[in-house]
């Protein structure tokens, strides 16, 4: 038996044509020690994905209705493939969150959402209560369906040589149809998947200052922009930038908290970041205890200075 990894179309591929989370999901997929296949949908560059180390085959389902796929069609496609696989997994992306539970119910099996550690063939660790607790969960033997928190896994190398195999997808279900897709962040990476996140709190003072202070830093670092609930409620940042228990839980390589005090609601959503930097005027703010590097400074002076001292692009 083998393991199938689903690749989300258009998940901001890097220069290699392969999204970072896909390489991380492939690393997670090696846990079962069986051959790993990839499934790419729509117009995704299948050839680029053949270079991911440890991949046997890239299954390419290139049908027009899979370019902006709906859960109904992805679940139907996977249902047709599932007999050949012992494990079907994906990074915890929008598409996987939408389609894999539907697949699991069609197969009458349970599903694991956002595993952060793979402990045995059917045993996993996953965050509950927005990461305030960790649960060790055992699934029933048989087909394993799961999403993983990609940032917990190293990126697979790009020196592989998989083969591409075209597969035929079932016809579109048609009852649900994507009519448009609007991007909120422009050129910025997606908040939940970004390597670097720059977030601001209410002490930025206004929407104008939020943008003027944080955008140059985010540009410099190729970072996603985030905000606290307080900053969102104050109208400094759009709701979809909210980081925390009622927003997006993030786990980037580098999280820079600017003018953020560190309410539990917010810190629950950033704890899994590899490196946390806090810049705050208040040395007693709770975030300063959580941060790996705390800088006590006026944010309006320190952030522009940081932009000046950083290399041109990272």
């Amino acid at each position, binding site marked *: 038996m083998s393991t199938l990894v689903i690749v989300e179309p258009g998940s901001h591929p890097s220069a290699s044509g392969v999204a970072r989370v896909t390489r991380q999901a492939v690393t997670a997929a090696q846990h079962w020690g069986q051959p790993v296949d990839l499934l790419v949908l729509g117009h995704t560059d299948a050839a680029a994905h053949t270079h991911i180390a440890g991949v046997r085959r890239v299954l390419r389902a290139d049908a027009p209705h899979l370019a*902006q796929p709906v*859960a*109904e069609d992805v679940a139907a496609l996977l249902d047709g493939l599932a007999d050949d696989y012992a494990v079907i997994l994906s990074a915890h*992306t*929008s598409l996987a*969150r*939408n389609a*894999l*539970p*539907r697949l699991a*119910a*069609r197969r009458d*099996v*349970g*599903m694991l959402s*956002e595993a952060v550690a793979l402990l045995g063939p059917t045993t996993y660790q996953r965050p*509950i209560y*927005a*990461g*305030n*607790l*960790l*649960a*060790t*969960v*055992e*699934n*029933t033997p048989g087909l394993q369906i799961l999403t993983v928190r990609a940032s917990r896994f190293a990126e697979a190398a790009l020196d592989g040589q998989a083969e591409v195999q075209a597969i035929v997808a079932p016809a579109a279900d048609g*009852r*649900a*149809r*994507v*009519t*448009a*897709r*609007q991007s*909120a962040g422009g050129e910025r990476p997606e*908040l939940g998947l970004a390597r*670097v996140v720059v977030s601001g709190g209410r002490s930025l003072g206004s929407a104008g200052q939020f943008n003027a202070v944080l955008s140059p830093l985010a540009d410099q*670092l190729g970072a996603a922009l985030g905000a606290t609930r307080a900053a969102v409620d104050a109208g400094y940042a759009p709701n*979809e930038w909210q980081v925390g*228990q*009622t927003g997006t839980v993030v786990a980037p390589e*580098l999280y820079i908290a600017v003018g953020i005090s560190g309410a*539990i609601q917010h810190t629950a959503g950033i*704890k899994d970041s590899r*490196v946390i*930097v806090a810049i705050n005027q208040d*040395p007693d703010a709770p975030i300063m*205890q*959580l941060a*790996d*590097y*705390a*800088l*006590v*400074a006026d944010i309006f002076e320190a952030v522009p200075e*940081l932009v000046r*001292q*950083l290399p041109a692009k990272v």
Partner: protein
Amino acid sequence: MKIIVSIKRVVDHNVQVRPSSDHSAVELAGARMSINPFDENALEEAVRLKERGIASEVIVVSFGDSGVQESLRQALALGATRAIWGQLPAGLEQPDQLAVAKLLREVVQAEQASLVLLGKQAIDEDAGQTAQMLAALLDWPQATAVSALEIEGEKLKLQREVEGGTESLEVQLPAVLSADLRLNAPRFAKLPDLMKAKRLPIEPFDCAAAGLALGPRLRTLRVESPAPRAGGIVVSSVAELVEKLRHEAQVIA
């Protein structure tokens, strides 16, 4: 059009949760419970559809111990027209998402509802699966994390939250939707409505009689607090911060 809204009673989001002393579960004794916040958005949307004359009935359903009756009465006070309580059989006090989806399917089919609204996830288990599983079991189309909804005849025009933006969809009824926080701002229950709701009937649903295989597929073996982050350091200047990020943490070039 009949709408079914599924609500889950969860530990209130202001409560700091901790593992039970034997680490087998989450310590729930004495914790304040409330309706899952995302389910409140689902309920609010259904009530608004009723107020606009689009929905004829809003039936709220919850599975759990007798405590869920309080949440159901609150939902009645918020505008639901009927409430159904499914008391869980012994040994199934902690149903997984697939079991709940199977129970919901029975209610949806018995009521001949044409729209089901749920929260996009429950803030206790954070699985975010039940709506999609129910849609699969009913073989209905679905939309998750819905942030805007309009109904035109048999067609739903909606927006859903996806990474990096929003997706616009058209979905045929009957359908299952899960609500994002952005969908609406739920109202608060008024005291007279809460008093009135105390006298309204709650209809029982016999979970065991449905004869379903509900044995949980997932079992929680252990619950623990995450390891605290190792304490960091205070840097004295931007230059020192950049130096540490480059050479110690190695997160910038």
